[in-house]
């Protein structure tokens, strides 16, 4: 009997595995920093950059990174004068997100470019190449390095940024590094899950790891990476067996994960209240 998974499937599986590790590791930091909305904006804002770079025959990676970071700067400048805590900044951010997506689609039409919007938005592991794997490995290495060398500063950033400033800890460079790394992870995960679905892999494993009420960030990060690895490679394997698109299957697999956690969170909360 022929093996269902031969060497042909090795690259997609490796890609999904590295993506399944990278996204949740960074995602845990982003969830704790309450930067999920900004990451979502980045994911969609990659599109116009990728399209323009294709039109100019430049690297899509560079175009995507610049576009993602530019959109965040634009959203932050547009919301800077809005009252804090009013929800208006969030509304601005979502408007920039929609506009970025719209701009990307318009550019594809206007420039008549042969861009496969489906694979950009929803990923296509079968057309991904070794360069995509290398890019994801680079992103993973940078995320792990950041977590190893800046964990205490990252905790300050998420827990008490004002307190950190009062200690004269300079968090500005770390903030910028984190933003650049987020853009890199989003762009590099495009091949595996696509721009529209990457958020599921960033958020759901992190939420699963946080649901148990653990108080050690290192343990939470390890658990998030493990859950992400299982979801990602499991979905990829299943997609290959059933001839389904892996990206959407990964995103769908995250939903039952949340449902299981909802029960766990409720149990932890009731234990806390006792």
């Amino acid at each position, binding site marked *: 009997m022929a093996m269902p998974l031969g060497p042909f499937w090795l690259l997609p599986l490796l890609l999904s595995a590295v993506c399944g590790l990278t996204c949740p590791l960074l995602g845990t930091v982003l969830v704790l920093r309450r930067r999920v909305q900004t990451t979502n904006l980045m994911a969609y804002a990659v599109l116009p950059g990728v399209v323009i770079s294709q039109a100019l025959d430049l690297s899509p990676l560079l175009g995507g990174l610049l576009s993602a970071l530019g959109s965040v700067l634009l959203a932050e400048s547009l919301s800077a004068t809005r009252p804090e805590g009013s929800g208006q900044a969030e509304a601005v951010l979502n408007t920039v997100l929609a506009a970025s997506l719209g701009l990307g689609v318009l550019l594809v039409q206007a420039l008549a470019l042969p861009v496969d919007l489906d694979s950009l938005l929803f990923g296509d592991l079968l057309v991904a190449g070794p360069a995509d794997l290398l890019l994801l490995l680079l992103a993973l290495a940078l995320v792990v390095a950041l977590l190893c060398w800046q964990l205490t500063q990252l905790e300050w950033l998420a827990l008490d940024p004002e307190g950190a400033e*009062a200690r*004269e800890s300079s968090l500005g460079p770390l903030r910028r590094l984190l933003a650049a790394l987020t853009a890199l992870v989003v762009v590099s995960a495009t091949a595996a899950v696509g721009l529209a679905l990457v958020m599921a892999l960033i958020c759901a494993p992190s939420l699963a790891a946080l649901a148990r009420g653990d108080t050690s960030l290192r343990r939470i990060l390890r658990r998030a990476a493990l859950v992400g690895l299982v979801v990602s490679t499991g979905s990829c394997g299943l997609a290959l067996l059933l001839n389904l698109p892996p990206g959407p299957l990964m995103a769908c697999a995250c939903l039952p994960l949340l449902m299981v956690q909802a029960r766990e969170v409720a149990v932890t909360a009731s234990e806390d209240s006792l």
Partner: protein
Amino acid sequence: MDPPLLQARGLFFGHGPRPLLGGIDLDLPAGSRTVLLGDNGAGKSTLLRLLQGALPPHGGWVKLEGRPLRGQRRRVALLPQSAPLAWHYPIDLLGLVALGADGDRQCGLAALRQVGLEALARRAIGQLSGGQRQGALIARALAQNADVLLLDEPLAALDAPSRHRLGALLRLLSARGTAILLTLHGERPESLGPVRQLVLRQGRLRPESFFC
């Protein structure tokens, strides 16, 4: 003569003919306990932020041991009335306090011992009561080697036993050399002991008075 631990001269903040703070002179010697009183909007919180360097003054200066505050701000801990801390963050009390000592858990444990919260070291910070949270922030300030504690309404929302405990803790810390300045609205707890009292009104500190 040694300069006071924290010294402010001519602190000015605000614009127009009626600035919020119009030239504040203040000395906080080591081991002193000072209570700052004043109506809502009198500028108490602003003054505390100026003394910590969190807010740049429009005039005047603040010095710590005779040297500019810049570069030694971590020795002056400001505990805002409602600290914008993510209390849902997954970290235990010891982890939070150790952050003040750049992650040194031994130092964090020593600080927790000082404030009497050692037994709660492994408790998630989200499970701490209001009084315990104040204690946690004070312990973190101690772990970061703070010589001056500036507390903005630390007794607000605390029940009588918690007020008593916090007052006793502040008295103990000042006896060990920490300079303490706190703002109050209601009555001070007796456990705080004798304090120097200052009143901030119309942008100026009124003459000092002592009570026991």
